């Protein structure tokens, strides 16, 4: 192989290398969400109610305890799991039972779901239970309009009104 041809082929191979880098560094495009879809992120970090309610200790019980341990109430640490149900247009799209963190199950319940949904207007219903009986006593239901690519966050913060849609 003569020198000009060799140099030419070298240039072609370098160009091919560069083209490979150039192409695959941006292409083909990736679709993290199907076309025409929106995304619901259900995320919560909430400590459920105590599984067993606190009870007041009697005088006899208190007397049996060491002086430094004489708390007026006996509160078992374990908390109830937090249950969440999400329905879209009447159909369930998520049902979560989030167990409390910690060896004694006394921490917060954490949960996350990524729920792609078709874009458009939907009837959204979120119900949450955080007591031992699993009573879904916190409910939020409303109509939401989700454009393609829109991210709707469902969160729960009792201090800010309970179930939040952001």
């Amino acid at each position, binding site marked *: *192989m003569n020198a000009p041809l*060799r140099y030419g*082929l*070298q240039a072609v*191979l*370098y*160009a091919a*290398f*560069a*083209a*490979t*880098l*150039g192409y*695959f*560094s*941006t*292409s*083909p*495009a*990736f*679709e*993290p*969400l199907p*076309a025409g*879809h*929106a*995304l619901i*992120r259900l*995320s919560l*970090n909430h400590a459920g109610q105590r599984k067993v309610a606190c009870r007041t200790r009697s005088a006899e019980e208190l007397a049996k305890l060491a002086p430094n341990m004489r708390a007026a109430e006996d509160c078992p640490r374990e908390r109830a799991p937090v249950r969440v149900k999400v329905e879209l247009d009447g159909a369930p799209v998520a049902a979560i039972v989030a167990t409390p*963190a910690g060896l004694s199950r006394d921490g917060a319940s*954490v*949960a*996350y779901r*990524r729920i792609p949904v078709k874009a458009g207007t939907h009837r959204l219903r979120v119900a949450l239970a955080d007591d031992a009986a699993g009573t879904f006593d916190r409910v939020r239901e409303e109509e939401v309009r989700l454009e*393609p*690519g*829109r*991210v709707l*966050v469902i*969160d729960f913060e009792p201090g800010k009104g309970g179930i939040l849609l*952001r």
Partner: protein
Amino acid sequence: MLKLLQRLLQRLFLLAESGANAVFGDRLNPLYHLGALSYFLFWVVVASGLYLYAFFDTSVTDAYLSVERITHGQKWAGGIMRSLHRYASDGMVLTMVLHLARHFAFDRHRGFRWFSWVSGVVLLWLVYAAGINGYMLPWDQLAQFTVTATAEWFDALPIFNGLLIRNFLSAENVNDRLFSLLSFLHIGIPLGVLALLWIHTHRVPQARTLPPNPHMAALGAAMVVLSIVKPALSLGPADLAFNAVAIDFDWFYLPTYALLYRWSPGALWALVGGLTLLAALAPWLPPKFGRRELRAFHVLANPDNRIIPVKEDESLLDACLRDGLAMPFDCRNGGCGVCKCTVLHGEVELGPYQESALSDAEREAGRVLACIAKPVSDVEIEYEPSGAAVRPVLVHEAQVVSMDLLAPDVMRVRLEVEGGGRIPFYAGQYINILLEDGQKRAFSFATAPHVPGPIELHIRRIEGGLFTTRVFTTMKVGDRLRFEGPVGSFFLREEGTKPVIFVAGATGFAPVKSMVEHAFHAGLARPMVLYWGTRTLADMYLRQLPEKWAAEHPSFRFVPVLSDPRPEDAWEGRTGLVHEAILRDYPDLAGHRIYACGSVKMVEAAQPAFAKQGLSPDDCFSDAFKLAPRIHSKDADLVRLGGRP
């Protein structure tokens, strides 16, 4: 399955390398410089990254804007730097993956190379981590995707369990501290890469960390052109309330993220963890159960006349370079033929190579490519040193600490090396005493390598001998001597199971003593027999020692032979020439290994006689007759036992 994959990859590489050899030439073939190319790209990434960091703003409001200013505000500086940063990072992934794949294909990841392999696997992940982390910094839609996908992926781990994503649910969750953290990581991880790269490369003797200049120039130019033609650009600014429907995706760094939403985060962890574990364990796959003999050998390299240990699966070139020999090399991949050497003795695995690098005629003539040839027995090679001179033998100063007359004409001299240091040597090697007028006299180590303390020599008086006369007349304890060593190729081969026959003539007992004591120390269990021949009983100066060995070690037998016993010796044992006693006792010497040390006359008479009775030339060791015709260097002395001039 693994072998099949390796064979397939090997064929593909050899094919591609053959084509690249035609275009680039065998010494500039980029496929032979994949590791060095990765290094070069890493430095491009570092240099361009430092420039970008000077203009980057680590705040949630200005991260995106500062990158836009770098990209468009200084198109011919920052813009190109940003593009170089991205493309060099991408290129690094490509060259690293090919580098790893090549080593896997050619089975160069086993044995002592496991460390480089495993550190390479870790390096690849660190580079991935640094690259993915880099994509988070411009805070555009790709950064948003990368951050949230990373959080979602890590949230599948019980330790996070859904907490990480809560940092990216809405814009108010993200603040300036995130960008300080990301910048810190984007500096810290590459520093870790650099540290590990150094460790990774340090294990390879004389590893090249930069490719040839033409490659650097051409690759650098290609990337600048690419940066101009297709500059790296940001997508739209991040908005956590919206998810981009289609993203310009970097498939070098983010392919795992593409699977995240096709599979589940847990399945992706299983895939990535499984592949990483498989890659990390590859040097030991398939597993070999039970005890296995370690295939480590020695190479005697000429013209240095130096014995070098070769680790299991190590190439001749790597072993020689590790020992500081000036062996020439270039591609180190069996492509250029620069490292060609001749195998004089022993066997090697040739390894896969380009036919243009080693012709059939050369192969027939015993030529091999040292960069890929692995010994499968002890070997002796000859090569042409590159530029630098043959490595000189070390010179030591020593003091005579004791002198004992073992026989009327045999003196045991013990030398303590200056500073009390020990000289590493092989059982059977020797030293050259350096005389004032420049002459040398060779004496074998009589001590085994593991024995601490002074060096023991057995010196026989030679009538008219310059040095030996001095030993028996004027030398006294406390005298100082200079010597060079260790030298010599006569040493105990520990591999194999063949019974060993030692043949010692007179003070030829000295190296045999070293070898036998070493064999006992090393736990060599094969049968050993020593035939020690002297003229009279008085000449057999340490006869009690081999008798003691025979009493203590069932695998050892001692046969003393006198050629001219005196009446006062009252000798009833074997008589005659020592090698003839062996010939009588062993009508068939095939399957034996003989170490002969004595006068040149003795071994010259013995060698053809042994060969006639079936002894393989590969199993007959004595410097006196094996190496004499082959050593070209004047300094490469032969063992001249007994201080013969």
